[in-house]
């Protein structure tokens, strides 16, 4: 029983990280039809920014350092994404494949740069002592980081849903996902919505980068790519452009991965996720919640 509880909470935590990366990907794809390979780069750069922000505040309380890394990572993710949109995506507005290609180039270059500057080996992250401790729940000793990740991802989910359903800009984004040409025909500046969506997606990916560092206790240059691929799978299973679908699929994928990796063999869970993707595509090519907006 305690093992099952632990696996559920850990799976949810993993799903929370997937969701944070997938949410931005899904929105960007839904609105702009851009498959953003640089999303993993936002994640990685934010993770390293967070690491150095916390290191700079090493003398103070660990909580201060942790919050600083969270804020710095999220901020840098948003700025990096905004700059990417303005400098690389916008000039290629009429060439969709070109847009994908520049994000590929950016991802490769950023990864190489991070590896060159900070090395390929994982680095230990310092977290507040409370997070390294465990909480007993139904007989299972669960690391507190899992709860932190889940709560923060849930907050982001509700924040995004509020933004999309209750604000003017959210309305524009949702309308743009449905029919971009119609929105611009109505005289609304869709380009600003593009930049905004990139900034939001980058912030979420940045937050995920710092939270993943907290979750795993280490950072390394390769995790961003691994996360990106999991997030792609989540986005397709959930339905492209649907935030609620991404959240649902992220939880599903995280749980499936944890349970099978534990009960079958390491690696089986990762494999099963890809099979799940194939099954979903065969049965519902649009994804679980595809077709509905946000």
């Amino acid at each position, binding site marked *: 029983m305690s093992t099952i509880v632990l696996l559920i909470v850990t799976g949810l935590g993993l799903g929370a990280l997937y969701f944070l990366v997938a949410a931005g990907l899904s929105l960007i794809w839904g609105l702009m039809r851009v498959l953003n390979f640089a999303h993993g780069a936002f994640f990685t750069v934010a993770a390293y920014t967070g690491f150095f922000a916390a290191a700079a505040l090493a003398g103070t309380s660990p909580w201060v350092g942790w919050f600083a890394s969270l804020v710095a990572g999220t901020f840098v993710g948003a700025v990096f994404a905004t700059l990417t949109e303005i400098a690389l995506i916008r000039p290629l507005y009429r060439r969709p494949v070109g847009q994908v290609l520049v994000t590929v180039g950016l991802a490769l270059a950023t990864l190489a740069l991070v590896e060159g500057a900070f090395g390929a080996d994982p680095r230990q992250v310092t977290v507040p002592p409370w997070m390294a401790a465990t909480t007993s729940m139904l007989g299972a000793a669960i690391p507190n980081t899992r709860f932190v990740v889940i709560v923060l991802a849930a907050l982001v989910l509700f924040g995004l849903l509020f933004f999309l359903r209750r604000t003017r800009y959210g309305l524009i984004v949702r309308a743009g996902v449905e029919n971009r040409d119609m929105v611009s025909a109505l005289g609304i500046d869709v380009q600003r919505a593009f930049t905004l969506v990139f900034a939001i997606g980058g912030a979420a990916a940045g937050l995920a980068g710092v939270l993943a560092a907290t979750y795993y206790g280490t950072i390394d240059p390769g995790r961003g790519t691994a996360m990106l691929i999991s997030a*792609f799978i989540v986005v397709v299973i959930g339905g492209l452009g649907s935030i609620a679908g991404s959240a649902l699929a992220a939880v599903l994928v995280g749980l499936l991965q944890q349970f099978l990796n534990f009960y079958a063999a390491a690696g089986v869970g990762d494999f099963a996720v890809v099979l799940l993707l194939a099954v979903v595509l065969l049965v519902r*090519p649009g994804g679980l919640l595809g077709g509905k907006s946000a």
Partner: protein
Amino acid sequence: MRFALLAALALLVLLFPFIHVTVPGLFEGPLDSAGTLNLLGLCFVFGALALTYDIVFGYTGLLSFGHALYFAVGVYVTAIALARWHWSLPAALVLTAVVAVLLPLALGAICLRVRDIPFAMVTLAFAEAGSILVLQNPFGLTGGEEGLALGGGVLPAALVGVSNTAHLYWIAAGLLAATSLIGWWAVGSPLGRVWQAIRENERRVTALGLNPYLYKLASFVLSGFLAACAGVAYLLLQGGANPQVTTSSFTLVLLVMVVLGGVGTLWGAVLGGIVYEYLDFRLVEFSNVPALQALPGVLRVPLSEPLFILGVLFIVLVLFLPQGLGGLVRSAGARSER
């Protein structure tokens, strides 16, 4: 005229192992040294691989992110049959050929149910599954992260050892020639014309009464099979398999090669593959140049990362030279004719 030029070039390339000339700056050793021949052989393999990717991406318009998987089939299936099961080389090649047809057929049949970007994502996911499988080292077959060395006694003696590098070089050159011929024939055949029509406007192809799905699948399987052939040559040149060739980054590198050379021209893709592999190899040496090591860290670190330089070069190409190096050569040719 063009044909005669091509034949002369091919003959020259075949004779490289007998030419004891040092080309300063271009290669470290003389042309007939094992190091240079190995580098050239790898360049040919990647030229051929880029061509196979161009068939599916450039000619049929399918943005597959899983092409590395089929290359890896050539590398790993052959390596496992030879080193783990101690099969003879012909038997191993037959098995590889069978897998190299069936796997792209099965996965292509699933992936092609979706289009465009979802297609890209699904192919990526399958390739990732392959990568996970190789890294997990099931039944001790793949060697996991350490890869799988062929070791002694596994291959015929003529294909082993530094003194026989010329033989491997000729295999690589032959592979490139064969792949180019097949590719050239395929894209010029009625089949290839339908591929290009699908790339331009799939709906019209359907309206003309053809089933695009079957044609796309044919393109996917042909390019997957040829990629596996390139994988076999790569295995022989390297003397072993490494998990690097299964990763998604490797597919992205392929994409860089094709775009570098020019999408939708076969010789452009070959050029891109050759130039990329050459740069990748030489930039590593460049990173150890003393003058570079003396630079301050801000300049030294980026310049000593080949992938950083290639990634930035790629972005610049996509932004300012979408036709690739091939387009540059072509427009220069058009200008000189005028």
